[in-house]
């Protein structure tokens, strides 16, 4: 059967590839991504499952699924601007993704089916650093975490559990790494950005709080504290932590092997193996 062999949480800020190119290999953020990429490689993945949030590029307000899964042999991206990153084709695993979709719906998680789709920086930026050769198939699971109403933290954790069960019901012996992508405190073009600035980190204390919960493995407390009220103070994209929470639901007792916080960006990087 397939199994989850590890998990990686990291952000997807669209300017990071450009900054990494400018600042070089010694830049702390580049080092964090490089560390995560090394850990991923060591896990020898046959597939990556990524929980992430589309920024109204794959979807729009005509049809905005709370939960969705991409099912196809491949997908393209980025379909938004990521400076220094050109549009590429990412391989996927269609039959495996279809199995996850079917089993998640049977378990009570009504994922929207997405086919012949493109993705934005929320998937391509992590892949730019994790698998620059795009040599590992990727199945995306989209969680709507920006535009309220968002799914609850507990719902997202249980989604991860359902996905893990579905992975374990797949007959091929695939090694699957689950990725959760997003920032913990970040505001884009909203009223929580600092005066005169387009973006900012309004709630660094929340970043530290989440960091502590991850480090101490007090996930039930994190679920209780990751509320709409907290998101209303942590920035209009801070709900992206729900992608990490779904990832944690999918883990099977892996231990935290490395974590790094970059509170100036509202972000953390972490690996469980």
């Amino acid at each position, binding site marked *: 059967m397939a199994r989850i062999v590890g998990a990686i949480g990291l952000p997807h800020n669209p300017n990071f590839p450009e900054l990494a190119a400018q600042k070089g290999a010694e830049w702390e953020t580049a080092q964090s991504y490089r560390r995560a990429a090394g850990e991923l490689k060591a896990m020898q993945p046959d597939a990556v499952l990524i929980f992430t949030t589309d*920024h*109204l590029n794959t979807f*729009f*307000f*005509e049809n905005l699924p709370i939960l969705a899964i991409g099912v196809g042999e491949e997908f393209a991206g980025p379909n938004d*601007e990521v400076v220094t990153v050109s549009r590429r084709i990412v391989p996927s695993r269609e039959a495996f993704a279809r199995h996850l979709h079917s089993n998640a719906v049977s378990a009570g998680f009504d994922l929207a089916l997405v086919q012949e789709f493109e993705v934005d920086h929320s998937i391509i930026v992590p892949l730019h650093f994790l698998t620059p050769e795009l040599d590992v198939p990727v199945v995306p699971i989209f969680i709507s975490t*920006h*535009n309220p109403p968002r799914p609850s933290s507990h719902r997202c954790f249980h989604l991860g559990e359902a996905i893990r069960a579905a992975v374990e019901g797949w007959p091929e012996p695939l090694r699957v790494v689950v990725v959760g992508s997003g920032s913990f405190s970040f505001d*884009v*073009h*909203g*009223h929580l*950005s*600092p*005066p*005169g*600035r*387009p973006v900012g980190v309004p709630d660094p204390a929340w970043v530290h709080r989440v960091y502590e919960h991850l480090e101490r493995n007090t996930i039930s407390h994190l679920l209780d504290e990751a509320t709409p009220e907290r998101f209303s103070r942590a920035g*209009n*994209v801070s709900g992206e932590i729900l992608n990490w929470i779904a990832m944690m639901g999918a883990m099977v007792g892996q231990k935290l092997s490395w974590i790094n916080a970059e509170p100036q960006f509202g972000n953390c990087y972490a690996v469980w193996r």
Partner: protein
Amino acid sequence: MSIISVNHLCRDITRDATLRQAFLRDPKGALAKYPRKFTEAERTALLSGDVGTLYQMGVNAYWMGYLARHGLFGLTIEAYSERVRAAAGANMR
């Protein structure tokens, strides 16, 4: 109502450089030609760069911010920031 039209416009001017240039040259004319319906309140707010009112109407901020990044409707990053923050403050009072 049709706030979705404003959301579409904010994304379209980012994705389509030709459309963006048309809006930079002649905002009123370009808005009249843009193939979506707007309410009078939306049209007035857009043409006057009143992003505070649009924010209170529930426009998606992620995309609306690109109006300021591209300097549309007379906006600057600073003016955008001031108006959105003032609108949120007004809501909270």
